[in-house]
């Protein structure tokens, strides 16, 4: 990768790196998995209830882990608590607090009504997880699953727009930085929303299929047809938006284009991963791959890889263009240490831990869901 092409301004540095790439990745998964909730609770696809439950665990875990990424990215993380005390309404970070808090409350309420029937049963089993489940019933002893389902439906419908506002805000945050080329583009918010659908469904499918295969529960691939097709369509749309974004920059031949092009060239691998993975998901979703559980697992892995690469190419190359308009500067990303890959790996492991914890306390599958399997 180039060190510096031309002369950069003396303070220029690629400030936001892997942690800020990872943050929209997590927030996108939160939003995308609510699409499955919508299919179950609004459109009545009850055969997806098990998938929706896993998707809910994934979303809740990502919601808990997502704010840690920008938090670790602060040079003064201990002062992060100051944000609600000196709120600047015109700062995009303020919106983050609002959306995250609201979404977290809604997701907790949805979790409670979705899982308390299982907590009650689980509490009777005793042990560590049994006691935890007993505590999480908050005193409920006997619940009517039909009544609870109505409440889950209500909170699921509220979580959908909130989750998309939460992830759309990341696009808004970047688009507020008009001084950085490409970020000022209006295409950024749709890119974030569409990518969210792909990665949210992809992550839910991945954990659902892998989790079930670990527990030797058989899954019928045809039950997953609808989410796979939605994922494929949105992968195609994402690809289209990516091309549109690049073509618009090139076509209007903005002053930054030559520099942006060389920054893109320096990140060619990420572009290739994004394009090939999304193309694979798009085409695979409509072929035989999308009709077998093994194929769907592959597609879900490709969707996650593709969207992570999409986040990378949205965050990194534009920052490489120097504000003096003469240079491209490479990012310095450490393997271990502050803002390094090790922090990102730690976040992914933490997310995985939360998913396993939720599944252990509430149970991988609900015994109360009346659904076709």
């Amino acid at each position: 990768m180039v060190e510096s092409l031309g002369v950069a301004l003396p303070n220029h540095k690629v400030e936001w790196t892997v942690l800020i790439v990872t943050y929209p990745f997590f927030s996108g998964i939160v939003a995308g998995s609510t699409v499955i909730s919508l299919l179950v609770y609004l459109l009545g696809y009850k055969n997806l209830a098990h998938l929706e439950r896993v998707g809910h665990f994934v979303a809740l875990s990502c919601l808990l882990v997502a704010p840690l990424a920008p938090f670790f990215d602060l040079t003064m993380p201990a002062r992060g608590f100051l944000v609600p005390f000196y709120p600047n309404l015109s700062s995009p970070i303020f919106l983050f607090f609002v959306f995250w808090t609201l979404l977290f409350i809604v997701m907790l309420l949805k979790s409670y009504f979705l899982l308390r029937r299982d907590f009650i049963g689980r509490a009777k089993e005793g042990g560590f997880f049994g006691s935890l489940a007993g505590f999480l019933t908050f005193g409920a002893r006997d619940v009517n699953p039909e009544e609870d389902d109505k409440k889950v439906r209500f909170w699921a419908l509220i979580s959908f727009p909130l989750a998309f506002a939460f992830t759309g805000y990341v696009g808004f945050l970047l688009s507020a930085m008009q001084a950085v080329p490409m970020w000022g583009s209006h295409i950024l918010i749709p890119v974030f929303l569409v990518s969210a659908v792909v990665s949210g469904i992809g992550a839910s499918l991945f954990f659902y299929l892998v989790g079930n295969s670990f527990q030797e529960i058989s899954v019928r691939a045809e039950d997953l047809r609808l989410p796979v097709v939605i994922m494929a369509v949105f992968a195609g749309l994402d690809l289209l938006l990516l091309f549109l974004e690049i073509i618009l920059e090139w076509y209007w031949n903005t002053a930054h284009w030559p520099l942006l092009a060389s920054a893109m060239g320096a990140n060619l691998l990420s572009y290739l991963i994004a394009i090939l993975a999304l193309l694979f998901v798009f085409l695979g979703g409509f072929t035989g791959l999308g009709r077998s559980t093994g194929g769907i697992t592959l597609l879900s892995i490709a969707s996650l890889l593709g969207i992570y690469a999409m986040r990378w190419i949205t965050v990194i190359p534009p920052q490489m263009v120097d504000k003096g308009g003469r240079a491209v500067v490479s990012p310095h990303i450490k393997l271990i240490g502050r803002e390094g890959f090790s922090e990102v790996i730690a976040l992914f492991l933490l997310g995985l831990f939360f998913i396993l914890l939720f599944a252990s306390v509430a149970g991988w599958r609900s015994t109360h869901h009346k659904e076709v399997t």
Partner: protein
Amino acid sequence: MKETLEEKSTSRRDFIRALAVGAVATCGGAVFETARAERTYSPQKGKNRFVFVVDVRKCIGCDACVAACKAERNTPLGVFNTWVEKWEVGYTDPATGETRVKVLNVPKLCNHCENPPCVKVCPVYATYRDEGDGLVLQRYERCIGCRLCEQACPYGVRYIDPIMMVMNKCTWCDHRVRNGLKPACVDTCPTKAREFGDLSNPNDPIWELINKNSVQVLKPETGAKPRVFYIGLEGIEGIYVGTGSDRKTQHPPAVWTDTATGRVYTFNVRTQHNKFR
């Protein structure tokens, strides 16, 4: 009963007296406050008083300002509040084939913008614009280090201070200018290419400088309303500084043809401090 009435009238008198004393004290305080404010800040609240003028015709690129700033602000290695760029600008007239080349030393520093995008995005008001004198300053003890302001600044003047680990930048030497001194870089400049003044003072020599010369600002199309005025960029402001149009093509590539005049421009920039990190 009588006692009660007397008590009441005493307390009423006391109340009126207290009210009068309070009113005088408040008005007096306000007067003193205004007087103090007038001495320290612009009486027109919200209007910039301080301005910075850079005459690039006079700058010889000696970097004395850079050294002075480093010393005055105790700026750590690898980061700069100010620097001097070398611009090489030329054009070829297709009619005559004549090529003209101009080399300029262009000092850069924080513009203390009137509409600063850096202030807009700061989540905790750690960067703020003093509405009294228009200085854009930092509350170091509050900055969380999110670098939103750095991303939002169109001029690349902000940096994370490697010692304090919070955001820092040129302050127009607020500790000096608010006490009647000039910024360190202005005081040090041997050719008076850097000037600093107070627009709220009609007798300030800065008025003459601004009135007698054509002044330009950098990147006007961003809407930040920068307050560092440049003298000597006329003629090339159409290339680099902008013509006021909001076209994205404002900043040209290295070779650029002005379709209106048919002139072919070439443009090159060099700075001297890009490799310290």
